[in-house]
């Protein structure tokens, strides 16, 4: 039984949420839907940890669907890179789902709750699928599953604020353009290589790099995924979508959806297209480096002037994506490890921060910065979580933010780009400013007279603190994450999985 489960683990991670989602739609009961979702996400988290252990111990593994062996059939190929992404998605999914019971109960009407959980599970399945698959077209299908369901769950914020509808619509437009660009790129590669399997593509592209088609395909795929990633000039959908979505959705998407898009870009940059592809080297140097730097400064600067805490954190997310893009632009293993580390670390801190803001929304009903007045005393645990999350965002030692920035700076030195290292430190100062604004209002300003705000209930605080404590634990004890990130970066660079035989059936 255990052996059979293990053999099917890659597909089970995607198929079980996909199976549970219609159950929630069929038996439309809020408590039933939540219980199913909770069990499924917890199981997915356990499964993804198991998969990560398998990959770290035994190297990459491959599973194919139906009776069709790759490169013909759909292949799920897992190495350290996507195993860690699966852990992020399932882990944050489980934590936010635990938080959802109370938060969704307040923010979404009873009748809509089962369908909300259906869409959440679909979104989870889609994100897990994007991370697990080794088939370029299958990636598109899962990307669409996750995107379409995320438009729905963002729009469900409309019960509190009608602006959620327009933000979901904007995201739908931008997301569809992104997906279309991606599929055009895949179509172009397919016309010249005749394959959709990523590993097979990689083997065939080598001799075709001189043609015009391959750089064009590369550009289409990269722009498409950059839209999903909210890479700097293509980020316009993100602030509104994060601001008006229900709390749980914001925390879940902020911690997972951009990470998965980031992973998909890495997969294409390194696995499908060779790292020494000249066009790609120029793209990294002349596009990723400046755009990453601009994102770090411009978005942090915009974040400083926000009067809405959710929007402030949303702009900060765009800046953090800038750090990830910067790490990729170095074109060395250290930079890439920093990017993968930051994918993981940023998921922890942004997830934790959004959940802390969610506690405030639960008690005050507002995410405007004015609602935080005096909360330092009234909601001590929530605000303490916010402060620790904020410190991690700034990159204070003993938090995860420090670990990723440390490796980012190391990578810059390795490349001999010391001004970049200085800029990383300088941009962290901007984070100090926007986090301080919230902290100042919460701790140094008196609460408005006559309004008593209670501390958030334990069912909200506990999930929030799980992520916040993880920020500290993986900041102090960074060995496991650094090892995984380095293994992942190595496997992207040198691809030990090339020519890997498919995993044996049960």
């Amino acid at each position, binding site marked *: 039984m255990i052996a059979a489960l293990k053999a099917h683990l890659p597909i089970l991670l995607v198929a079980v949420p996909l*199976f549970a989602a219609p159950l929630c739609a069929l038996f439309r009961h809020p408590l039933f839907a939540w219980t199913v979702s909770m069990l499924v996400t917890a199981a997915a988290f356990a499964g993804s940890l198991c998969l990560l252990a398998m990959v770290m111990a035994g190297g990459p593994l491959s599973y194919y669907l139906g009776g069709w062996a790759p490169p013909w059939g759909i292949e799920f190929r897992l190495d350290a890179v996507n195993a860690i992404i699966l852990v992020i998605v399932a882990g944050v999914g489980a934590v936010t789902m635990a938080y959802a019971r109370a938060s969704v109960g307040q923010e979404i009407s009873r009748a809509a709750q089962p369908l909300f959980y259906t869409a959440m599970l679909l979104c989870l399945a889609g994100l897990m699928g994007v991370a697990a698959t080794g088939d370029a077209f299958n990636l598109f299908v899962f990307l669409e599953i996750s995107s379409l369901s995320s438009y729905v769950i963002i729009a469900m914020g409309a019960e509190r604020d009608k602006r959620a509808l327009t933000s979901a619509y904007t995201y739908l437009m931008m997301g569809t353009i992104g997906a279309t660009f991606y599929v055009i790129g895949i179509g172009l590669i397919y016309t010249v290589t005749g394959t959709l399997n990523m590993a097979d593509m990689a083997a065939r592209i080598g001799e075709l790099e001189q043609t015009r088609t391959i750089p064009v395909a590369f550009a289409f795929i990269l722009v498409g995924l950059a839209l999903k990633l909210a890479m700097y000039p293509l980020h316009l959908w993100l602030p509104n979508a994060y601001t008006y979505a229900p709390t749980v959705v914001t925390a879940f998407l902020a911690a997972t959806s951009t990470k998965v898009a980031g992973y998909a870009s890495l997969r294409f940059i390194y696995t499908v297209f060779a790292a020494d592809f000249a066009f790609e080297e120029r793209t990294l140097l002349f596009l990723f480096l400046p755009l990453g730097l601009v994102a770090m400064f411009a978005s942090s600067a915009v974040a400083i002037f926000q009067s809405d805490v959710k929007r402030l954190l949303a702009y900060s997310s765009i800046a953090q994506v800038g750090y990830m893009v910067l790490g990729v632009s170095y074109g060395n293993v250290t930079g890439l490890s920093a990017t993968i580390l930051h994918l993981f670390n940023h998921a922890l801190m942004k997830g934790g921060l959004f959940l802390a803001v969610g506690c405030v929304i639960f008690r005050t009903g507002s995410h405007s910065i004015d609602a935080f007045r005096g909360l330092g005393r009234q909601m001590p645990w929530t605000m303490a979580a916010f402060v620790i999350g904020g410190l991690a965002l700034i990159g204070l030692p003993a938090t995860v933010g420090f670990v990723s920035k440390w490796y980012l700076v190391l990578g810059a030195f390795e490349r001999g780009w010391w001004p970049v290292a200085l800029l990383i430190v300088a941009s962290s100062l901007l984070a100090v400013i926007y986090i301080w604004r919230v902290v100042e209002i919460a701790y140094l300003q008196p609460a408005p007279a006559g309004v008593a705000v209670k501390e958030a209930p334990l069912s909200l605080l506990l999930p929030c603190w799980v992520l916040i404590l993880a920020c500290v634990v993986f900041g102090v004890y960074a060995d496991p994450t650094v090892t995984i990130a380095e293994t992942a970066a190595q496997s992207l660079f040198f691809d030990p999985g090339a020519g890997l035989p498919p995993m044996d*059936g049960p």
Partner: protein
Amino acid sequence: MTHYLILRVIAKLMVGPIMLFALYVQFHGDFGPGGGFQAGVIFAAALILYGLVFDLTALRRFASLELLCSVMALGWLLYVGVGFATMLLGGRFLDYDFLAADPVAGQHIGILLIELGVGITVAATMLIIFEVYAGRKIATEGEDDA
């Protein structure tokens, strides 16, 4: 629409054959062009035509939103269920060979069930979209609600 006699009679005549054609496309899918997506859309088109000509209320009498939602979920469960069935029978996800003693017969059963799941879900989803939009128009114009 009550005055358009020709439209009503023709629509009444058409609905049946369209549904029949949908079933043909559905079950002929493994021999020729066709399959669940096309069949689902054609099947839904028959009911949408009925709803357009005979009023949304008439359509909702036998295809309410709640029912359609459950039907949609069932079709979807059928699809994923086949995947789990093949795994329980000892194969990989969606490996139809294991659905029968003879792999060819297994492939036949597998694709039939999968396409049926797709067809049911697509038809139900099309109808849901139609009913939600059409119902919205009634609500905003303040005519008699369904």
